[in-house]
Structure formats: C-alpha cells, structure tokens
C-alpha cells in the first residue's frame, strides 16, 4: 500500500520538476516504486503507469501525452492562481466548508476535505464556531446514498432501487439519474423513470437497495436532456400535490424584502407606496398547504387572487378565533 502511494507522489514530483517531457523509460528508471523490467513486463508496467496517471488526473493534475509516449505536465492547467478573496470571503469559505464536514449528512466530505486543503493558506486551526445538520432522517444513509447517486449522475449510469412512496406503497424503480437537490433536511433525486418514461422526483431517504449499473463503467447509459436544470424541480411545500391554480400574493411593505428569500428571486410586480409592497404570482398544487405557508410566514402576506382562496383564508382565520375566543376549551374541531 505504502509503495503505491509513494510511487504516485514520486511520479507527480518527477513530472512537476521536469523542464520538458518525460518518456516512459525514464519514468520506469527514475520514479521510485515502479518495478524493474526483470520483474514486470512492459504491458503490466504501462497499465500501472496509466492507472497512476489517472489517479493524478483525479487529484487535479493535467498530464499531456504524445504518440511517442512522452508525458508532460501542463503547468497552467495544473497549478492554481492566487485567490483574490477578501478576509471575510476566506473566513466564509472555510467556515461553511468546515461546517459541512461536521455534518454526517453531507455526501461529499472526502472531496471537500481535499478542496479545503488545496485552498488553505496556513495550517491555522482557528475556525469560527459553525456547525451544520443538513438532514435529520438517517443522515449517514442519505450521505452515502447521495454520494453513490452523484457518481451515477456524473457518469450517466442507470440506477435501480426499491422505493416506498408517501402513501406507503413499495415499488422497484429503474431510473436514469439527472440530478440531486437538498431541501428542508432531505435529499431528492430527479430522473427519468424508464418504466413510465417520465421525469420524477424521489426522496432519497425512502429509497433502499440502491444499485448503480456497473456494466461498461466508462460508457454512459443515457444522455441527460440539454435543457435539464435540477433547480426547476426545487419547489415550495405547496407546489407538490394534485391542485392546479395560479395565486397572486401581496407582501406588505414591511415584509416585501423577504419575498425573494421566501419564494426565490423571480419576477415581481412592485406597487407604489412608501417602501413598496411586492406582488408575486405562484403556481400552486396544494391550496391548503399554501394557506398554511402564508400564515406561518406572516404577518403581511395576503392572497389577492383567486378570490375564493382569499375567502378560504379568511374563514379559516375566523374558525381559529372562534376556537380560541371563549373560556370553553376543547372545541369540536372539523
């Protein structure tokens, strides 16, 4: 094991220190760790060298080769330029990165460790007190599964898994994974379900016995649609369901500044008056959930249209007043 690690580092040092190209014979002769010709045939040596170069590419090295078997490190493509970051930006990147490393549900810890090490300027261990817990349901399982799925997304390999939907129904799915997103403590997979030929969203924590197609690992199983953007699948809680309506919401002047934070940046119609209120239109798939969301994020949010939804909100508020208005506790709730 130590020999292979040492050999890969030696190869990196030899390529980086060389003024020009280095041929395979010199590598075999000068790089400690490659067995001599007496104990390893040419084909085995070439396979070993190719594997080592692949490892260096995975580490960020850009290695060029020509038809004659010469290798050269492309310094401009390999080495980073100094970062032009302010002190606050440096702290932010380090603090957030460290917080994610502390989070058992963060799926890419190994790569993030390496990234932060490469960006480090000193071994200064003082980092702000920042922690994170991105997922609350089986965080280790979500991290491990998302890491596997992310590999399948980037290499375009088909996956299969058993899935329990929100109604408790179990089914096996074969999916072409297009993308992943995290929201409100859960990771989600978006991909084309090959059986029904539809793009669907799956909650990762509900998927079990995940299997990634390992046949022909370097060959993609599918082509992701050019216009796919995973962010278009990241929706508000009221945008999942079977309702289908368009709702106009007003944010009063005092809370108008929160419209983008709550709904994401989007086209909004600003209205007149002092510090302006903001009017936003949203597509809603669950009207009850929208009303709940409006109250949870209030005061200052109101339904402009459709009028029946505005009335539904009003009657719901009236019911709440009636339930809490008198001395009698334990109303007959419907």
């Amino acid at each position, binding site marked *: 094991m130590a020999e292979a690690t040492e050999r890969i580092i030696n190869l990196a040092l030899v390529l980086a220190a060389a003024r020009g190209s280095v041929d395979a014979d010199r590598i075999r002769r000068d790089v400690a760790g490659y067995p001599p010709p007496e104990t390893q045939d040419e084909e085995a040596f070439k396979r070993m060298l190719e594997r080592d170069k692949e490892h260096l590419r995975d580490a960020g090295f850009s290695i060029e080769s020509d038809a004659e078997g010469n290798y050269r490190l492309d310094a401009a493509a390999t080495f980073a330029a100094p970062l032009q970051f302010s002190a606050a930006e440096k702290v932010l*990147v380090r603090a957030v990165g460290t917080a994610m490393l502390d989070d058992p549900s963060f799926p890419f810890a190994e790569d993030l460790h390496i990234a932060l090490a490469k960006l480090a300027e000193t*071994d200064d261990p003082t980092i702000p007190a920042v922690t994170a817990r991105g997922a609350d*349901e089986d965080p280790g399982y979500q991290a491990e599964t998302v890491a596997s799925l992310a590999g399948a997304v980037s290499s375009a390999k088909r996956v299969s898994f058993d899935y329990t939907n929100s109604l408790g129904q179990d089914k096996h799915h074969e999916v072409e994974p297009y993308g992943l997103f995290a929201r409100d403590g859960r990771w989600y997979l978006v991909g084309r379900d090959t059986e029904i030929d539809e793009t669907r969203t799956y909650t990762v924590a509900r998927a079990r016995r995940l299997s990634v197609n390992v046949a022909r690992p370097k060959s993609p199983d599918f082509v992701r649609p050019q216009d796919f953007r995973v962010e278009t699948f990241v929706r508000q809680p009221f945008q999942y369901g079977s309702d289908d309506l368009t709702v106009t919401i007003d944010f009063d002047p005092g809370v108008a500044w929160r419209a983008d934070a709550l709904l994401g940046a989007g086209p909004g119609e600003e209205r007149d008056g002092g510090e302006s209120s903001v009017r936003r239109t949203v597509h809603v798939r669950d009207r009850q959930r929208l009303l709940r969301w409006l109250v949870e994020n*209030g005061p200052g949010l109101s339904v402009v249209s459709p009028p029946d939804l505005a009335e539904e909100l009003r009657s719901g508020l009236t019911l*709440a007043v009636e339930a809490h208005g008198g001395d009698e506790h334990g109303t007959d709730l419907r």
Partner: protein
Amino acid sequence: MARTSADQRARRLLALLHLFEPDARLSIDSLARTLGAGETEITRDLELLSMCAADQRDPNAFVPVMIEDGYVEVFGTLPALETPVRLSAAEVGALAAALQVAGVDADDDLLRRLLEAAAATDVDAASIERALRSTTSGGIEALANITFALHEHRVTHITYHGVGKGIPGDRDIEPLSLHNDKGVWYLRARCRTAGAVRTFRVDRIRTSTVTEEVFEAAGHEPSTTVIDTASLPVARIKLAPGERFSAREWPGVRPVDVAEDGSTVVEVPYAGTGWISRQVLARLGRAEVLSPTIVREAVSDLANDALGR
C-alpha cells in the same frame, strides 16, 4: 475504520504540499483535521512523504520534512509542487455543494473568482449546478458578515425581522456560534439590546454591519441543535381528526391522547409564543391550544390581527 486507498492517500498528501514552505512548522493535529484523518494515519503518511523525491539519487530532491513531537518541520525547499494544484471536478462539486448552503450560487462572483483561480480548466459551475442543488434560506451577505464577525469577535449591528413582527428592529449583538439546520442558518449571539443570549434566523437579518468593536469571547460551545426542547415549556394542542403533525415541523412533539372522534392531543415544546401561536393559527381552525392560556390568547390575538379586527 475504513481503509484508505493508496491513491486517496497520495491525493491528500499532494493537496497539502503547498503548505510546506521552507522553515515552516506545521501542527500534525491541524493537518489531520484539515484532511479529516487520524493523527497516527497522517503521521505515517508524512513519514512516507519524507521518502518521496523528484530524483532519488539527489538528496536535495527529496521532500524536506521531518516529523517530531506532533509537528512537521520543513527544513528545505520542495523539489516541486510548491504551488497548490487546481481543484478537480469532484472537488469543485463538493465545494459548490457546500457553498450553496451558504447561499453562493453558480453565478455568484465569489464562486466565479474561485473557479477561475483554482478549478480545473474544464470545470464550470453552471454545469455542476445543473445537476446539484443544496438549498438554503437567506442571502450570502448577512452570512458572510456574521461569519467574519464571529471569527474576529466583533460587535455587529443588525436590523432583525423577528417571527410574527411586522417590521424589523435594530440590535447590537456579539456573535457566538452559527448552526445550519436543514438549510436554515441560525445565529446564537449575545444581544446587547435584550441583555441576553438569543437565537436569530440569519434569513431574517435584513441588514448587518460589522463594527470595529471587539468583544471578549467567553467559552461558548457551538451546538448541533437549534433548540434543546427538553428544557422548554410545552403547549397542549388539540388537532382535528386527520390533521397530521411531525417532529420535523414541531421538534419534540409528543402525542398524549387520541379521542374517539379521531382528534389528537399533543404536547409541543415552544421557546416563544410568537412561533407556537403562528404554527397553530396556520392550521386555520383545525388546531386549538388547550393550555397554557398565554398561548391560547396569542393565537386569538394573532387571528384577530390577521382579520384586521
């Protein structure tokens, strides 16, 4: 413990090399933390590194490190690789996913500058973000300011829009710790205005200004939970038949009774009446606070306000 592969060990040592400036003295503990490995493992790897060379026949071409008393002493100049290597696509993806949680999007200037300087030339943020998204609440500006203030122990002036408040209010705070819970950033800070330690949602900080004033940072352990529900008062709430509840929405919720008609009584820990009353009101008549009276009245007041009465 999982065994680390040879290529992974090589990769993490190569990621560290640029820190080995002549005469540097680096703590193994901190290097181990940087790489997420054990001290023993890193010590063994660094010993191995001391045997690596650009030319095994030249004593000056070895990596000039010596391990002693928990430190790495760098006694010469590296034979090569003194500049950090660019981030691979996988490393950029990991960093982008982490920074998304801080509100840094693909088109953010910070990520653009980072990629230009430090990422492999065939990597672009937009292509990563097409397939990967970690959502977070709130913008990057307040988080960047707060993180900096936390690091520098600086008093910070904020305008904060509290839960249930119609307009933001001004506060001077001493930031103590930050915690991200399911995509929402929470700041624990000593609020000078309130004269007590308070928890603030960062996405409710409308403006933030880091002052020059440095505060005395007493020992404060960052928490991995937002609120310790065990120490909070509880509200007894009756839910209409079929009305669902979960610990994800109401941390620490506990069902205490199910009536014949299917209605459920639950106990919900709460830190302030503002939050719990709004949660109950949001059920629009399908939930009723049975006790305490103060929460019951808060729901009634809130509902009347919303109706403009």
